[in-house]
C-alpha cells in the first residue's frame, strides 16, 4: 500500500496544515483514536443532564412570555444562559475540528452525528442536538455498534426528535384509559436508517412490532429518559422472527443488540463508511473488507475503521469526494490559520456571519438537515451552480477578513494541499491580481473542494 500523509490529512481529517502532534500514518491514527477522547476534555460541551437542569430554571421565563408580562431580570438571565450553552456547543465542535490532533475522531463524530441525525428547532432547546453527540456518540463510537445504537436510541434527543415520547401501547393502561396509540416514527427509522438499511428484508409488521416494543420509552422534563411501564404495550413482540418479552428496558436493549449484529447492518454501515470517506461509488472490495471486519469482531467499530484505513483503495488518488459545506468551511478556516482560541472568543455575530450563515447558504445549515436521513453524499448534490457560486463567494471574501497579512497564494496552496496541488492551480495562484484573490482562488479550486 502506498501510503501518503497528504491523503491521510485530507481524506481522513480536516486537511492541512495538520495541528501539532497529529499522527500521519494509519497505525498512529488508529492508536490515537483507540485512546481517550482528549478533545472532549479539552474543549468541553454540555451533556443532557446540564441541559435538563438549565431547562428546569426556564419556567418563569416562559410563564412571563405566555402571560405577555415583562420578563423578570432573573428569568432573562436563565434564558441567556441556555442560549449560551448552544453557542458553547457550536464553538467547541468547531474548535475540536480545527485544532485537535485526532482529526479522524472529529470526522467520525460528524459521520455518526449525520447517521443519527437529530434536528431540534425550538430556540431554547437547540443544544439538545449536541448533547446526543456528547453523551451517546463520542463515548461509544470506538466501542461496539450495538452499544452506540443503544445509547443513541435511549437518548432524550432521539426520543424527542422521532416522536417516541408520545407513542403509547394501545393496550397499555395509559393507552386504554386515554384511547391513545402508537407512533411508529422511531421504530421505522431505527431499522431503515440507523441499522438494517432500507434494502433489507423487513416488513411493515416488523416496524409495527418494533413500535410496540419501544413503547414505554419517554423523554421527560428534568428527568431525561424514563421508562414508563404503564405506557408499554403488554405481551411479547416479534421482530425479524425473533421474539422479545420481559419487563422494562431489557427487551429493548436486546433487540438493539440483535439489530446491530445482523448482516444487513454490517453491509449498510460498511457501505456508508466507504461512501463517506472514499467514494460515492466505492470499490466493492473495500465495502466487503469493512463488513467482514465488522462481522468477525461482533460489531466492533475500531476493527471496522481499521479495515477502512488499512485498505489500499483508501489511499488512492485522485480525491473523489466533495467536502460538504461544513468540512469545506472548517478546512478553509484551518488553512487560513484560524485557531481554536479565535473561534472560542469570537463574538456570536461574527461566528454567524463568517461561518454559520455561509454554511447554511451553501446548503448545509448546522444541525439543520431536512429529515432524519441527514445530508446527501453525492458530489452532484453539493457542486451545483448555486452551491459553487456561494463557495466561490466565501472563498474570495474570507482571506482579507481573516488573514493578516495575507500570504503568498502559491505558498498557501502548497501549505493546504501539499503534493495534491495541481499544476494549473499553482499557475493560476501566481497570476492573481492580488494576494487575497489568489488565496481565494485556491480555496475555491476543485483541488481544495475535494477530499
Amino acid at each position, binding site marked *: 500500500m502506498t501510503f501518503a500523509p497528504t491523503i491521510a490529512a485530507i481524506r481522513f481529517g480536516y486537511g492541512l496544515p495538520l495541528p501539532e502532534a497529529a499522527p500521519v500514518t494509519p497505525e498512529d491514527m488508529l492508536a490515537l483514536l483507540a485512546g481517550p477522547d482528549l478533545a472532549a476534555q479539552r474543549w468541553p460541551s454540555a451533556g443532557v443532564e446540564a441541559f435538563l437542569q438549565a431547562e428546569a430554571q426556564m419556567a418563569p421565563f416562559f410563564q412571563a412570555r405566555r402571560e405577555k408580562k415583562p420578563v423578570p431580570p432573573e428569568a432573562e438571565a436563565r434564558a441567556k444562559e441556555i442560549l449560551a450553552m448552544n453557542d458553547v456547543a457550536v464553538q467547541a465542535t468547531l474548535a475540536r475540528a480545527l485544532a485537535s490532533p485526532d482529526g479522524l475522531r472529529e470526522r467520525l463524530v460528524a459521520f455518526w452525528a449525520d447517521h443519527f441525525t437529530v434536528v431540534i428547532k425550538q430556540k431554547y432547546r437547540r443544544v439538545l442536538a449536541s448533547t446526543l453527540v456528547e453523551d451517546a456518540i463520542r463515548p461509544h463510537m470506538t466501542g461496539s455498534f450495538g452499544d452506540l445504537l443503544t445509547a443513541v436510541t435511549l437518548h432524550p434527543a432521539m426520543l424527542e426528535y422521532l416522536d417516541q415520547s408520545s407513542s403509547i401501547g394501545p393496550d397499555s393502561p395509559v393507552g386504554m384509559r386515554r384511547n391513545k396509540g402508537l407512533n411508529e416514527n422511531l421504530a*421505522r427509522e431505527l431499522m431503515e436508517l440507523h441499522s438494517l438499511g432500507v434494502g433489507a428484508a423487513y416488513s411493515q409488521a416488523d416496524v409495527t412490532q418494533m413500535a410496540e416494543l419501544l413503547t414505554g420509552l419517554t423523554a421527560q422534563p428534568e428527568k431525561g429518559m424514563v421508562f414508563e411501564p404503564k405506557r408499554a404495550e403488554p405481551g411479547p413482540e416479534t421482530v425479524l422472527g425473533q421474539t422479545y418479552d420481559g419487563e422494562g428496558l431489557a427487551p429493548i436493549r436486546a433487540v438493539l443488540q440483535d439489530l446491530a449484529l445482523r448482516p444487513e447492518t454490517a453491509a449498510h454501515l460498511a457501505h456508508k463508511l466507504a461512501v463517506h470517506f472514499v467514494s460515492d461509488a466505492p470499490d466493492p472490495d473495500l465495502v466487503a473488507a469493512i463488513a467482514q471486519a465488522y462481522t468477525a469482531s461482533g460489531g466492533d467499530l475500531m476493527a471496522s475503521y481499521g479495515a477502512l484505513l488499512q485498505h489500499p483503495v483508501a489511499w488512492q488518488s485522485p480525491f473523489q469526494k466533495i467536502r460538504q459545506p461544513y468540512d469545506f468551511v472548517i478546512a478553509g478556516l484551518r488553512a487560513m490559520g484560524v485557531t481554536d482560541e479565535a473561534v472560542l472568543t469570537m463574538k456570536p455575530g461574527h461566528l454567524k456571519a463568517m461561518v454559520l450563515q455561509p454554511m447554511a447558504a451553501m446548503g448545509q445549515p448546522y444541525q439543520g438537515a431536512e429529515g432524519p436521513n441527514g445530508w446527501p453524499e453525492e458530489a452532484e448534490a453539493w457542486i451545483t451552480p448555486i452551491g459553487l457560486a456561494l463557495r466561490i463567494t466565501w472563498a474570495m471574501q474570507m482571506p482579507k477578513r481573516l488573514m493578516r497579512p495575507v500570504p503568498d497564494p502559491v505558498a498557501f496552496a502548497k501549505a493546504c494541499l501539499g503534493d495534491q496541488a495541481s499544476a494549473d492551480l499553482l499557475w493560476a495562484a501566481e497570476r492573481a491580481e492580488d494576494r487575497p484573490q489568489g488565496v481565494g482562488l485556491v480555496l475555491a479550486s476543485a483541488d481544495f473542494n475535494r477530499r
Partner: protein
Amino acid sequence: MQRRDFLRGLGILGCSAAAHPWLNTVTMAGSDGGRPLGDHRFVVMILRGAMDGLDVVQPQGAPEYAGYRPTLIQPDAPDLDGFFRLHAAMAPLLPLWASGELGFVHATSTPYRDKRSHFDGQDMLEAGTGMDVPLDQVRDGWLNRLLQTQKGLTSQTAYSVGVDAMPILAGSAPVKEWAPETTLALTPQSQLLLDRVYHDDLLFQSAALEAMELAAAGNLGAAMAAGMGAGKAIGTGMVPQEPKREARVRDVVGLVDYAAAQMLQDARIVAFSLTGWDTHKGQASGLPLALTRLQYSILRLKSGLGPEVWGKTTVLAMTEFGRTAKENGTKGTDHGTAGLMLMAGGAIAGGKVYGQWPGLAEADLYQRRDLMPTSDVRAWAAHALRGMYGIDRAVLEGVVFPGLQMGDDPGIIR
C-alpha cells in the same frame, strides 16, 4: 463576464464542446429561436414528507371518517362536492375551485409499496419508474426524460428552482438550476483564472459556467422587474396579501416570483419542492403551516403570471405517498400508501375531485391500514403532458414513464 470568454478560457470551445451535452444546448440557445413544447407551462411541486391527502381533501361523506380522525376532522371546513370538504387552511383557493382552476385526484399513488420510506418514495416519484426497476439504477428523472424526447430545446426551457436537489429534472437534457437572490461577483481576472483552475474537473467546470451565466441573467432580470414594477404591470394587478407571519412564506415568495419571471420568458417546465408534510404528531397545528405555503404559492404564481400565461398553465403538486387512514396515538398520522394530487392552473378542467374512491371501511383499506390506491399518479401526469403538448402515448408509456399504462383520457386538460 461573457459566456464566450469563459468558454475560451476553459479551452473547450475548440476541442470538446460537442462531447458535453450541456454545452451543445448552449449553442442552441443562441441559434434556435423556435419554441419547443409550444406555449403551455407545466409546474411540478414535489411535496416532500408525505402530505396527508385525507386531511387536505376530507372525505366527510364516508361514515368511517369521523371515527378514524377524531382530532383532525373539521366539520365546518368548506364543502367541495357534498362528499369531500377542503381543509380550512386551503380556503383562499376556493375561488379557483369555483372557476374550475383547481382540482384534485384522490386515492392515487406511485407504484411504490410497503416499505413506506420517504426517501425511496420520493426517488420513485421523481424517477417515474415502477417497482420493477431498482431505484439505484435510475439515473434520470421523468421530467428530464420528457425533455430528452423534444427537439430544439434551449437551456432556458426547464428550470429547477430553489436550493433543494430536484432529481425529477436530473438527466442529460439541459436544465437550469437556480435559487433566487444568489449573486456571484468576481473580477474579470479571477474569472479567467477560475476557468483554468476548473479546467480538468467537469463537475466544477459546468457548475461554474452555469453559475456565471445565470448570475448575469439574474441581475438583468431583477433590474427589469424593478423597472416594470413587478406584480403591478403584470398579472391581476394585485399581489395576493401575504399570510400571517407564522406560516413563513418568505422563501416561497422568492421561489415563486423567480419561477414566474422565467415562465413569462422561455421557461416551459419548472419544478420545485415544498417541505413540512411529515405530520406524525400534532397534525392539526402542523399541517396548516405547510398548506398555507402551498396555497399561497399557487395564488402568488397565478398573480405573477397574469391571466394569459396562467390560462396556459398546469400545476401538479405531488407527494411520495399518503398517510394512515386513522390518526395515530399522537394526534398525527404515520406513513401510508395512497394520497392526493393537487391540480391548478387555467389549463386544467378543475372544480372536481377525480379518481375512483375506494372507501374507508377497514376491508377496503390497503393492508387494513392505508387508503387504497385506485390509480397511478404517473397516469395523471402523462395525460396532462399529452393534453398540453400532444406527446405520443408511446413516448409517455415507453420513455417518460416506462411500463405505465395510461388508460382512458380522464380529460383533466381543458
